[in-house]
């Protein structure tokens, strides 16, 4: 800062976005008289080519060494203008944005007020820009590999894209097989493709791809490092089956003493499996796993005279001594594709899900209607007395979605269409059934969705607008109590089966992933993206991306699209091989740091550690910032009692004059 500051100040009209409530010429005129301001101009769109050219020309001809652009939020165009000033040889961090759009013109209606505030914002930027220091960005190498957490359709698609581009992919899945929720579905709307038929080829591709390493029945335990250089620790849980020997023949499962006695998670609790199992026939890897919570050998240490599975296995793959295995590797980027939980229908007790066996959820319906499901595709339900083929069926939509009483105000985006699809499938299986759908609104927004919804209605599926208040039993029938709100008629609909179109919820165990990767949640409790519109697959943690329903409810086409987007974003550091480190990072004054470690505890990015230094012969601990991890958020600075850690460009001595200028004193 040897040169006397020569500030160029540019006030943007932003069309009429700013100029409608801020007298931009008055602001420029006012700024002209502020200390060190050499030139102040206005222009209709500063971010446009001619707008940037204006700045460049002034830097060249007027010898400016500081630039202020009074325009929109720095989140929009700070980078644009930094690049512009850098092209003229100025340090890019000698630029300050005065946000007179989001923080001024958009929140004021009165021109006088708006102009007065814009003047203050500009004065405060002038007070700060003089004190800015030149900063240099640095680059580090990136590991050409990616970690994908969750191997549903999102994880699978992202893995295939990244692997096809030539990078190594570690695909971690907590259950014994990849496939996720899509593997459980019967058909997909609106094309009625068989879900398994379109998914399984991709699963097989994953397994056989030379660049993909599948880590199934595994859990990410530790994530260290930063974009380009993450070190990952994964726990591969013991399967008690040697996967190299297991041929997937299934003799063990047939022999198991608990065969057909354990509730199958894959069949949503409606089917049975053994203690040694493969979740579904097309599972990848096609290997068996022993369920340690149920297996007699593992829970009691004894299984008759000896475990039957061991006897039955010709390959000798059963190994009760197997231990968990920790795998460690390095990646440059991470994609989170952990999916969703379905809403627990027992949280709406008025629908009697816990009491009546013929009240089922949409997910259970998927298994019931599936030819590989527990009934082989026959629609049969138990009405409390006998097993029947339901002839009168009611669907209830928005169960656990758009419902503030259960805390989910969002629309789950798939229930309208899966309900339409299931109604269609039931119509095919039971042609004479009376099918009614109770809805609040029908949201058929995707490609071919409205057409499909029309088709289903033409198939004599009655849509009745009304949100049922209660389901109760009358004789052998269930009664759906509802008001048809289009005709204002109270109805009591007697049916044989009710399907609750349950919504999607964030994973119950998502906090573990949040803590691991320092992610945050949005209002709906799903993972939060970096920007809802412009960075929908990024997160606040560099190098960590989101795909699929962990970010918010979405259907399969949207999930695949987002997975491809996340894959493309994750490949940016992998392909360039370099990661640019933000220069506006926290910096420690080691001479005053007292090594208390408060900053270490509060840092949301684990960017600070305590290191031992020698201060004139005395060994003591001080904080040190890993610049590659630091985001410059300033949390550390807020807890530091000795003011020893501060973000560059946002040091106290830089922002206090800025604040003082807003107050109009000092």
């Amino acid at each position: 800062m040897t040169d006397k500051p020569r500030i160029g100040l540019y006030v943007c009209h932003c069309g009429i976005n700013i100029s409608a409530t801020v007298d931009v010429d008055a602001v420029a005129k006012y700024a002209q008289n502020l200390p060190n301001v050499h030139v102040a101009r206005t222009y209709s769109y500063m971010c446009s080519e001619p707008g940037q050219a204006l700045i460049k020309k002034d830097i060249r001809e007027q010898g400016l060494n500081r630039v202020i652009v009074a325009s929109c939020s720095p989140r929009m165009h700070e980078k644009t203008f930094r690049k512009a000033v850098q092209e003229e040889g100025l340090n890019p961090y000698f630029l300050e944005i005065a946000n007179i759009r989001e923080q001024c013109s958009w929140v004021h209606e009165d021109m006088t007020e708006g102009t007065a505030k814009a003047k203050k914002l500009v004065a405060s930027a002038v007070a700060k820009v003089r004190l800015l220091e030149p900063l240099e960005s640095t680059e580090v190498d990136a590991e050409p590999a990616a970690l994908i957490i969750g191997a549903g359709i999102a994880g699978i698609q992202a893995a295939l894209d990244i692997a096809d581009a030539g990078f190594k992919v570690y695909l971690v899945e907590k259950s014994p097989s990849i496939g996720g929720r899509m593997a459980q579905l019967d058909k997909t709307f609106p094309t009625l493709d068989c879900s398994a038929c379109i998914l399984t080829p991709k699963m097989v591709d994953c397994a056989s791809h030379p660049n993909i390493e599948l880590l199934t029945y595994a859990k990410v335990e530790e994530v260290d490092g930063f974009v380009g250089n993450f070190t990952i620790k994964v726990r591969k849980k013991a399967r008690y089956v040697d996967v190299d020997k297991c041929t997937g023949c299934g003799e063990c499962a047939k022999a198991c003493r608990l065969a057909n006695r354990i509730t199958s998670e894959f069949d949503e609790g409606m089917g049975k499996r053994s203690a040694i199992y493969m979740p579904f026939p097309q599972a990848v890897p096609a290997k068996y796993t022993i369920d340690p919570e149920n297996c007699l050998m593992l829970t009691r240490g004894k299984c008759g005279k000896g475990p039957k599975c061991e006897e039955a296995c010709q390959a000798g793959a059963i190994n009760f001594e197997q231990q968990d295995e920790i795998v460690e590797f390095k990646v440059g980027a991470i994609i989170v594709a952990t999916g969703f939980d379905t809403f627990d229908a027992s949280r709406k007790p008025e629908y009697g899900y816990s009491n009546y066996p013929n009240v089922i959820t949409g997910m259970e319906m998927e298994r019931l209607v599936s030819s590989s499901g527990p009934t082989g595709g026959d629609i049969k339900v138990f009405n409390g007395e006998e097993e029947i083929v339901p002839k009168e069926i009611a669907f209830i939509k928005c169960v656990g979605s758009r419902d503030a009483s259960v805390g989910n105000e969002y629309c789950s985006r798939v229930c309208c269409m899966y309900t339409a699809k299931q109604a269609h499938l039931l119509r095919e299986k039971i042609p004479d059934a009376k099918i009614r759908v109770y809805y609040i609104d029908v949201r058929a927004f995707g490609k071919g969705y409205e057409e499909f919804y029309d088709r289903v209605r033409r198939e004599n599926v009655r849509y009745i607008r009304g949100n049922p208040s209660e389901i109760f039993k009358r004789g052998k029938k269930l009664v759906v109590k509802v008001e048809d709100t289009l005709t204002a008629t109270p109805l009591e609909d007697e049916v044989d089966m009710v399907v609750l179109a349950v919504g999607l919820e964030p994973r119950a165990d998502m906090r573990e992933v949040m803590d691991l990767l320092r992610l945050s949640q949005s209002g709906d409790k799903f993972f939060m993206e970096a920007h809802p519109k412009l960075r929908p697959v990024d997160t606040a943690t560099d190098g960590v991306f989101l795909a699929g329903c962990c970010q918010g409810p979405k259907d399969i086409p949207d999930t695949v699209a987002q997975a491809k987007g996340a894959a493309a974003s994750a490949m940016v550091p992998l392909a360039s091989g370099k990661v640019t480190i933000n220069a506006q990072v926290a910096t420690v004054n080691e001479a005053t740091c007292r090594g208390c470690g408060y900053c270490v505890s509060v840092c949301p990015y684990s960017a600070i550690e305590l290191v031992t230094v020698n201060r004139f012969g005395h060994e003591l601990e001080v904080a040190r910032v890993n610049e590659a991890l630091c985001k410059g958020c300033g949390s550390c600075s807020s807890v530091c009692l000795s003011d020893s850690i501060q973000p560059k460009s946002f040091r106290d001595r830089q922002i206090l004059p800025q604040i003082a200028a807003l107050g109009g004193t000092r």
Partner: protein
Amino acid sequence: MDLEQLRKTAAEVVAKDDVKYLIGWKKGTYGYRVSPVFIENEADTEDLIFSPLCTANLVTYLTLVEKPPLPRGQKPDTRKVALMVKGCDSRAVAQILVEKGIEREQIIVIGCPCPGVIDVNLLVAKYPEVAENTELKWSGEDFVLIRGGEEIPVKREEVLAEKCRLCRYPNPVVSDIMIGEPVKPWQTEEDTGVSELEGKNVAERWEYWEEQFARCIRCYSCRNVCPLCYCEDCILDRLNPTWINRAVNFSENTAFHIARAFHLAGRCVECGECERVCPVKIPLGRLNRKLAREVRDNYGFEPGLDPDGKPFQASYKPDDPEDFIL
């Protein structure tokens, strides 16, 4: 307290090779005065006392130690420091440990369960000080004054320090060696002694503190004596940026005290030293205890109880209140 036992234990401690010195209390030169003492050899342990006059918190000496540059090749003195603590003092030790201000293995804590110490101002007001050194002893729930061979009983409530009246932790929470038997807490219910002040309206409270802060002479005794104000370079001394101007006036004084109170929120262990040393008697304890109550009520946190715990400012619970966020 058995003084013989104290002195014997102290002698054993200082006799160890890896102990630099022991910090304790000894008789002062006149009247009710008691001084801190740094004992390096066994013989000097005869000077040690522990009486209701030992109000001072010795923990502050742990962090006051200067670390001058060492000549090249010379190793720093890493011998341990032993110190005597009352219940309240021990909370300061615990809090400093949480903040990594000292290392646990660098100190030997000699815990002294404390039946309550006096506020010397109250004692002087009631029983004027004479030049002759005067002893005060615990006697049942009260005290007894020994002067010129004469024993004068003194009622507890007449002279007890305010911090002791509110004390819930008379027994050390951290100690390596405990001298004497634990005592029953005088107070079990949380009382910060600020209820009366809290009952007043904002204008009245402002008036109260205006009167207090206007008197401050900015001698910084409160900061210097505080066991938890141990930054080598206090931000309130900095010139760039100047958080607090040097001028001694109501505005800057207020800024100083509020800044200090905020730096102590969730850290102050209510040892009362700031109040004791204030030459103009500003009731700083009330300010700190008010913030302590806020922290306790809102976040369920009390500093200086768990030496292995996490510091309040640097810990987070998902259900922390956030209704103050606009």
